[in-house]
């Protein structure tokens, strides 16, 4: 069914169709609407969910962990400072191998205080052991939330699905939603796993784990992340077979004969696709790489893909504040180390705090990357696109 939905509405709609057992949440701009709309569904009896209105995001994730440990299918939503306040609990959710789905609306972290989009919030959580899926638009956000439930239950890892704050969260788009029945048949009952309410098989979760076993348990968790990519891909394939829409781990646009490419993530990738079309009309061989799955980092696919270009421009809506550049740039450099062909790469940090990135600015990036492709030289490896000097 074709409907008009904002990104927040699309994610709330997906949550309604998933009909989770428990949602524990605290409101925060620009993600408030997701759980606000969902709480209306609870009030109106459209879902069977137990909604826990907690006093903070730390408590929200704590309650989600408790509910998931009890065997429930659990979802929540947050953004920015809320995700930062959950930080401590994120690691626990992952290490306990709990399938929790978190809808995140990307928003910059304070200070200075700001409510608009950049990717600093979720990227600051990249080492917490959660699978991270960055979506481009409302349709993909809707589909990815449903997929995330399946992925989390197979990989036994929590999954966060993100949309760009305001640009997508509050932007109305035409999306195609599934029937409730289709979603419920697809997801089925959650697979049984050891849980605290199974009185026939009592277990202990979260015991003290010192020098003698912590290392083994952490190694096991790392393996969970290392082996999670096939689950993500299998779910994407099954989803395509059932419903027709397909989202690869790394999305690409017009790269087949491209000489150079630009890498981006989130809504800016949609803008960049328009630029690719414009430049293609002028005969310029450019393409786009959109990182969709960032945890686990798809190193082998990226290495294979990126070696084919004369140069790559990497757009980051975040900075690592490490002197090294943005997150995607740093990780792509790590992937390229020891690659047989190492194309020159340049980092364009853009859009912090919701600063718009225009078609013209992205075209400038492509033009510069084309030049780098010809010369093979990068004079300034990390630049800030759109900042007033």
């Amino acid at each position, binding site marked *: 069914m074709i409907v008009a939905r904002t990104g927040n509405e699309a994610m709330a709609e997906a949550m309604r169709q998933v009909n989770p057992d428990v949602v524990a949440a605290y409101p925060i701009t620009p993600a408030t609407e997701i759980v606000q709309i969902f709480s209306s569904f609870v009030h109106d009896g459209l879902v069977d969910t137990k909604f826990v209105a907690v006093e903070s995001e730390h408590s929200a994730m704590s309650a989600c962990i408790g509910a998931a440990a009890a065997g429930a299918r659990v979802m929540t939503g947050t953004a920015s400072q809320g995700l930062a306040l959950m930080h401590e609990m994120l690691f626990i959710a992952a*290490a*306990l*191998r*709990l399938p929790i789905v978190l809808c995140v609306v990307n928003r910059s972290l304070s200070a200075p205080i700001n409510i608009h989009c950049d990717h600093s919030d979720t990227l600051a959580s990249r080492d917490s052991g959660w699978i991270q899926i960055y979506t481009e638009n409302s349709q993909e956000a809707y589909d990815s939330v449903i997929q995330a439930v399946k992925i989390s239950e197979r990989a*036994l890892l929590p999954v966060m699905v993100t949309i760009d704050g305001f640009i997508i969260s509050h932007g109305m788009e035409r999306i195609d939603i599934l029937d409730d029945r289709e979603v419920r048949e697809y997801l089925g009952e959650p697979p049984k796993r*050891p849980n605290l309410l199974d009185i026939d*098989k*009592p*277990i*202990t*979760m*979260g*015991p003290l*784990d010192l020098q*003698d*076993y912590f*290392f*083994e*348990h952490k*190694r*096991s968790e790392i*393996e*969970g992340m290392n082996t999670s990519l096939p689950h993500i891909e299998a779910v994407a394939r099954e989803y395509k077979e059932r419903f027709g829409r397909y989202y690869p781990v790394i999305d690409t646009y017009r790269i087949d004969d491209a000489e150079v490419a630009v890498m981006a993530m989130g809504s800016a990738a949609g803008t960049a696709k328009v630029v690719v079309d414009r430049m293609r009309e002028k005969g310029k061989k450019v393409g786009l790489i959109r990182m969709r799955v960032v945890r686990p980092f798809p190193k082998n696919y990226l290495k294979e893909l990126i070696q084919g270009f004369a140069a790559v421009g990497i757009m980051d809506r975040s900075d690592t504040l490490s002197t090294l550049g943005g997150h995607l740039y740093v990780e792509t450099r790590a992937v390229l180390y020891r690659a047989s062909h190492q194309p020159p790469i340049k980092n364009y940090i853009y859009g912090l705090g919701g600063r718009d990135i225009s078609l013209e600015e992205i075209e400038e990036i492509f033009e510069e990357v084309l030049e780098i492709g010809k010369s093979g030289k990068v004079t300034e490896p990390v630049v800030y696109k759109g900042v007033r000097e």
Partner: protein
Amino acid sequence: MKEGWRKLPLGAIIPEAGSAEKFHTGDWRSERPIYHPDKCIQCLICFIYCPDSAIKVEDGKVVGIDYDFCKGCGICAKECPPKAGAITMEREMK
């Protein structure tokens, strides 16, 4: 032999109940209580105070100390009535 990481249950769970019994906390002991049955008046105060249930009691009478779980805190020796002095502490010899 302890298991390697591949064989451990996911999420660091303990998949069985009552497994604390397998963890012999007596290993932690630096002092060892010695029970002298000839001096014991069977008041059972040591049994009541022991934080680790390490005073062995059979048919209502103290019969000894469970060294698998006694951490050597010395509370039993301290609480044993001075006139009886049925539990004394000595240095643990491993």
